[in-house]
């Protein structure tokens, strides 16, 4: 089933069949989409017995790109609407990078529907309001370059189709939607709120990650949190540390989702 309609929008969905617990994958921002999980964790998690669900968030990948509705609250509402459309009630969430903000807020809003969280290089936990200044600055610079240097057209004209298309998607999101403004307004998940999160959390961060502080806050404040640090890695652990993530993730899912078959499948 490649597409579902939720909140009036068309979402691109991929599912890898399994009889076990439902595991939903939440990708990162702008140039990311469901393919980063499709080629790394989704198939091994499904092969181990879980039911993997992946979708492209609004504006990303092959989902519809409306001009508005990119707040964290909208993204959380999109998640539950997609799950409603698919008929999934209680799920585990696996999130990468900014997907972590969506996962944390979803678990805080609907703990009855989120059984556990695996957060890979997740943004979100922070103690101060201007928590994502670096991320916003990076995106703002990209937005200007894409608009004034016509990066996408230049790449496409020079025959670099893949990069050109990625740049065109980034341009459309950063310069053609409210995503930047909506992101700027996003609040961090503060320590007092983390302390109230009564769901098991597996936090996975690279040793040299620029968001490692978020991992330390999760470990310090979430009552039931395990932190795994990947030695020698930075932010891109999903692609570069896939095997090591699976060694940690599959036993963790097996334990918390009460699906023992998952534990033996780590490779």
């Amino acid at each position, binding site marked *: 089933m*490649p597409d579902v309609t939720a909140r009036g929008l068309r979402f*691109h969905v*991929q599912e*890898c069949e399994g009889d076990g617990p439902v595991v939903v994958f939440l990708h990162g921002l702008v140039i990311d*989409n*469901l*393919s*980063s999980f*499709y*080629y*790394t964790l989704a*198939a*091994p998690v*499904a*092969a181990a017995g879980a039911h993997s669900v992946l979708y*492209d968030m609004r504006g990303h*990948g*092959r989902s519809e790109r409306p001009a508005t509705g990119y707040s964290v609250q909208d993204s959380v509402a999109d998640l539950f609407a997609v799950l409603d459309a698919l008929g999934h009630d209680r799920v585990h969430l696996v999130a990468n990078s900014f997907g972590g903000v969506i996962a944390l807020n979803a678990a805080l809003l609907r703990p009855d529907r989120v059984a556990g969280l695996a957060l890979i290089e997740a943004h979100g936990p922070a103690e101060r309001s201007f928590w994502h200044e670096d991320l916003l600055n990076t995106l703002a610079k990209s937005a200007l370059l894409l608009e004034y240097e016509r990066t996408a057209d230049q790449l496409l004209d020079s025959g*670099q*189709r*893949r990069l050109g*298309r*990625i740049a065109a998607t980034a341009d459309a999101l950063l310069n053609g939607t409210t995503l930047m403004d909506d992101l700027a307004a996003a609040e961090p998940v503060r320590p007092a709120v983390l302390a109230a999160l009564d769901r098991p959390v597996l936090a996975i961060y690279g040793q040299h990650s620029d968001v490692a502080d978020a991992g330390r806050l999760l470990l310090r404040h979430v009552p039931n949190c395990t932190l795994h640090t990947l030695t020698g890695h930075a932010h891109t652990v999903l*692609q570069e540390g896939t095997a090591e993530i699976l060694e940690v993730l599959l036993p963790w899912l097996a334990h918390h989702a009460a699906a023992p078959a998952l534990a033996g499948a780590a490779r």
Partner: protein
Amino acid sequence: MNDVMSEVVQMLTEVVGEDFLLDVEVGPETSFSDDLALESIEFVALVDRLRAHYGDRVDFPAFIAGLDLDQIMNLTVGDVVEHITAREEAHA
């Protein structure tokens, strides 16, 4: 061009759009990454169409799961056609 080959090319056209494919002559040696410059999300969409068309007996998710991302992107159109043909013969 054999039947499976022309079906795969048809599905590719649906995924990437006709304009682009007019510039590239697709044959068994054509690679998804270097020659077609497919985005990884477009390959996901192609696999989806292959799955819908040939059914579970071709088992693309398992075929893909056995490869890493570099291997997947280095696949040629011929590799995919060969996989389909072999699986179809196994079930014939």
